[in-house]
């Protein structure tokens, strides 16, 4: 009752990447890719630790991961890695107060200078680099 009254938007509102422009999309992708990379790291440690159980255990694991499905997961991991790093660097610089514009007299229609073209460009470059890396990775993994 109390929470319904509070009209808090909740997780569904938090993960909704529409409505508020590209910076909100980048926020959502950073979160998604961060959690994806964490899941991959845990999975990867589990995967490689099977080598401790001997050759057959390792070979069994490889027969699971060295598959088209496994390669698709890796291609996605490459994309997440590149986007997360590129956008992460933008976020770190901005959160230190750099590249977010300079205070001044706001003029109608009041476009916020923190949502400037450099910020948007960095996000698009991170997305483009991630796409290129994914294509290259897919070429290596699926190529012969």
């Amino acid at each position, binding site marked *: *009752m109390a929470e319904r*009254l*509070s*009209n*808090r*938007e*909740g*997780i569904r*509102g*938090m993960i909704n990447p529409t*409505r*508020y*422009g590209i*910076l*909100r999309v*980048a*926020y*959502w992708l*950073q*979160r998604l890719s961060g959690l994806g990379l964490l899941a991959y790291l845990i999975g990867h440690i589990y995967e490689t630790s099977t080598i401790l159980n001997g050759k057959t255990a390792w070979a069994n694991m490889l027969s699971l991961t060295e598959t088209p499905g496994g390669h698709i997961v890796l291609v996605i991991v490459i994309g997440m890695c590149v986007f997360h790093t590129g956008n992460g660097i933008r*976020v770190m610089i*901005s*959160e*230190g*107060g*750099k590249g*977010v*514009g300079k*205070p*001044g*007299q*706001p*003029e*109608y229609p*009041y*476009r*916020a*200078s*923190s*949502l400037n073209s450099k*910020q948007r460009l960095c996000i698009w470059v991170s997305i483009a680099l991630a796409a290129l890396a994914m294509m290259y990775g897919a070429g290596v993994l699926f190529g012969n």
Partner: protein
Amino acid sequence: MATVTVPEEKKIDESPAAPAEPKPTTITLRISRVNPSENAEAKFEEFKVPVQKWTTVLETILHVKEKLDHSVAVRYSCRQASCGSCGMKINGKPRLACYTKISELESNVVTVEPMNNFQIIRDLAVNFEQLFSTHKKMKPFIINEESEVQPGTKEFIQTPQDLEKFLQFSYCIKCGLCNSACPTMATDKSFVGPQGLAQAYRYTADNRDKGKEDRLKIVDQSHGIWRCHFAGSCSNVCPKGVDPAMAIQLLRGYLLGFRK
């Protein structure tokens, strides 16, 4: 007695053709109705409202109140984006009802709901207690021992450059749209929020103020400034160009030692 004759060409036309009023179109206004004191679920009520090119969302709600259902609860005052009373969710996004024209929404169906992340009082009216108390916690005043005017003291002189460092943040009308759009606010009920953080910066950046250390201590806590992830949604919706996202990152610059 002298008689004056009006020259022919200056005679006033008795029946001027009135400029044709553009025909109003009709839109459907969907208003979220809820009365938490009756513990009822929110439901939408639909109203047909005539609109012109210049009609604002607030005017359509007032039309409903005047002509169709006077029980709709809505808060407003200035009708000119100055008082910060009429924030609500319009077609899914927080906006000021008095500052949003129906024509800019490009839809014949307009849905109005109470702002998210604020307690609902009734229908579209929400409770601002948390926003105001957080605002006060940021010490929104100049802290300076010498600010009392004594005989022999002079006013503080600021250059236009000094003024520009904080002026835009002082345009905040406390409408709460930023807090309603913020993704951290959506899940964290104790978060200070973009409105409060921007005001902490507004006073800290003022060169008459000496309260920087106090305010940095207030925002440097677990539900404080570090919960901002620079999603920029606050600045995307702010109707006054305050740009809270910029203020927050600049404030964080002090805490991280990148700025003095």
